[in-house]
């Protein structure tokens, strides 16, 4: 089963890397968006899914990455060389938030992250080095879509690989212990805050890398776009829809959510209200299948294996 999953993953990765040879620019653009969604969903899942710390402030890290790239590029640094400083900055900032923030448990941590995200968005719109609310533009002549596409696809593959490795490592098992029973884990000698901080920093760094590539591809960023609350929301929604805490779940979620968004944005009537669908999805998943598409698939497989026995909803909880 695991070997089959690995083989499928490698096949998808090779197909994605080779896609520019066969597909047109429009399709590649959609694939770039999908790769971005995969990076965001899978990195969020390292903290939110594996460690169970649900943060609604992840656009902050995307914004830090994007702004580092644009501001350094404007000072003459090669755009791709700015990615690592952006990731380090975001990781450092995640520690600054996490040190006080991880004293809070469950929903209180979530509320605090909404506060941080909004505070950063408002502050970024009011100071001058971010270009205020009108934003900043990359220096001219730094755009090359082929390179941008490969950059995002490679990052997506790396992120999923890192998530898979984390899940199987001692680090990942410790995060799972923290998610299931933080007091129990601490009683066994686990320094829960340190592990949460490490997971937060890792996922923040990956999101910031995506933020840098986002800036390189769109050439223009503004606080209203990169620090958008709706962005933080989509980042959370994808793993939840797909199956929180699994490696495949965020991939499925990214595929479903970005497809929905792409199709809906084509309908002018729904351009303002695509979040309607997100809200409905969120309600449906929480009420009917808290483990997302992965949980649903497992239930179907289990039902097929034991003919005659119908799965009861209560078993899934």
């Amino acid at each position, binding site marked *: 089963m695991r070997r089959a999953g690995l083989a499928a993953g490698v096949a998808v990765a090779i197909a994605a890397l080779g896609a520019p040879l066969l597909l047109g620019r429009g399709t590649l653009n959609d694939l770039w968006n999908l790769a971005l969604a995969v990076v965001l969903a899978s990195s969020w899942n390292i903290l939110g899914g594996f460690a*169970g710390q*649900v943060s609604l402030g992840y656009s902050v890290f995307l914004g830090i990455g994007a702004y580092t790239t644009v501001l350094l590029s404007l000072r003459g640094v090669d755009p791709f060389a700015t990615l690592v400083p952006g990731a380090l900055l975001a990781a450092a900032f995640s520690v600054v938030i996490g040190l*006080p*923030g991880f*004293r*809070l*448990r*469950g*929903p*209180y941590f*979530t*509320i*605090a992250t*909404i*506060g*941080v995200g*909004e*505070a*950063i968005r*408002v*502050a970024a*719109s*009011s100071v001058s080095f971010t270009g205020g609310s009108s934003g900043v533009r990359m220096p001219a002549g730094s755009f090359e879509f082929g390179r941008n596409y490969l950059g995002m696809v490679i990052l997506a593959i790396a992120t999923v690989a890192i998530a898979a490795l984390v899940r199987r490592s001692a680090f990942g098992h410790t995060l799972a212990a923290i998610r299931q029973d933080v007091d129990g884990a601490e009683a066994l000698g686990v320094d829960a805050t340190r592990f949460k901080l490490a997971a937060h920093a890792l996922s923040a760094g990956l999101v910031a890398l995506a933020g840098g590539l986002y800036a390189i591809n769109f050439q223009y960023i503004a606080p209203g776009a990169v620090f958008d*609350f709706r962005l933080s*929301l989509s980042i*959370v929604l994808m793993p*939840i829809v797909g199956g929180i805490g699994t490696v495949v779940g965020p991939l499925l979620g990214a595929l479903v959510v970005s497809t929905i968004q792409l199709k809906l944005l084509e309908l002018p009537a729904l351009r*303002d*209200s*695509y*979040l*309607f669908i*997100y*809200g*409905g*999805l*969120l*309600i449906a998943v*929480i*009420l009917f299948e*808290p483990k997302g598409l992965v949980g649903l698939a497992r239930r179907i497989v289990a039902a097929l294996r034991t003919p005659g026995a119908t799965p009861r909803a209560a078993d899934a*909880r």
Partner: protein
Amino acid sequence: MARFLTVAVNSLLAAGLYAEMAYGLAVIYGVMRIINLAHAGVMMLGAYLTLTLFSGLGLDPFLAFLIVGPVFLALGMGLYHAVVRRLPHGGSTPTMGSLLLLFGVWLVLQNFAYLMWSGDTQSILTGYTMKSVPVLGVRVGIPSLLVFLASGASLLFLNLLLKTTYLGKAIRAVTQNRDAAMLAGIDAEAISALAFGLGCAFAGVAGGMLATLYAFTPDFGRSFLLKSFCIIVLGGMESVTGVAAGALVLAIVENSLAVYTAIPISFQDAITFAILFLALVVLPEGLTGLFARAPRLRGAQ
């Protein structure tokens, strides 16, 4: 001195407004240990209903609560029976599921409003919107004054309801210990539904009052939601009087910073959210917890 009076009067008025927004959140949290993220959406719908009543029937926005209150009581109870009831009751702390579920409800409400009324900015302009009266030498807008009075009346109403009626006592019993309340014969399920309805009714009325002061869109309410959280955290999460105290603290901090420091007004929200973060981390039991802790610390020395 004149500057101090300005800060004092403006803080009081802002505190009235903030408390009005936060009562509903505190009632729901107290009874169900649910953080109602849909609060912002309910406030926004309250604003639109008040606008509809005002432009359609000519009903004064400050009398609209007579209709908005019952409508949102029913809406809240309906919402409780449709979705909230299905959540497992999670002990003494809110569950992640309840947070995300109500977040989904908020998104649905918000985008329902986009479909109904589009994203255009709306506002309620009455004959007295631009009029003001002097209070202690400070010019005060009439709508702000009315909101303050309404907030005082709400505080009185909620305290009377919770302290003197059977319903209120039952709500407080469920707040303190759900299982013991059920053993004493209280229908905790019905009380929860009523409390959720009451919380939504207050949110809807607060939304209507906010609409007399601010222009609004379907996205209305997010920053007010975070302010409300800040207030109920400062107020110790449960008591309505605590909410009023928390609102006063937040309003004084905001107004003092705006007048006595060089921090630009556009930073105000950022500071509020920073206070929310700090309050959650430093004061998990709210201001009342701080006061309760102080004698203990002195005793320890």
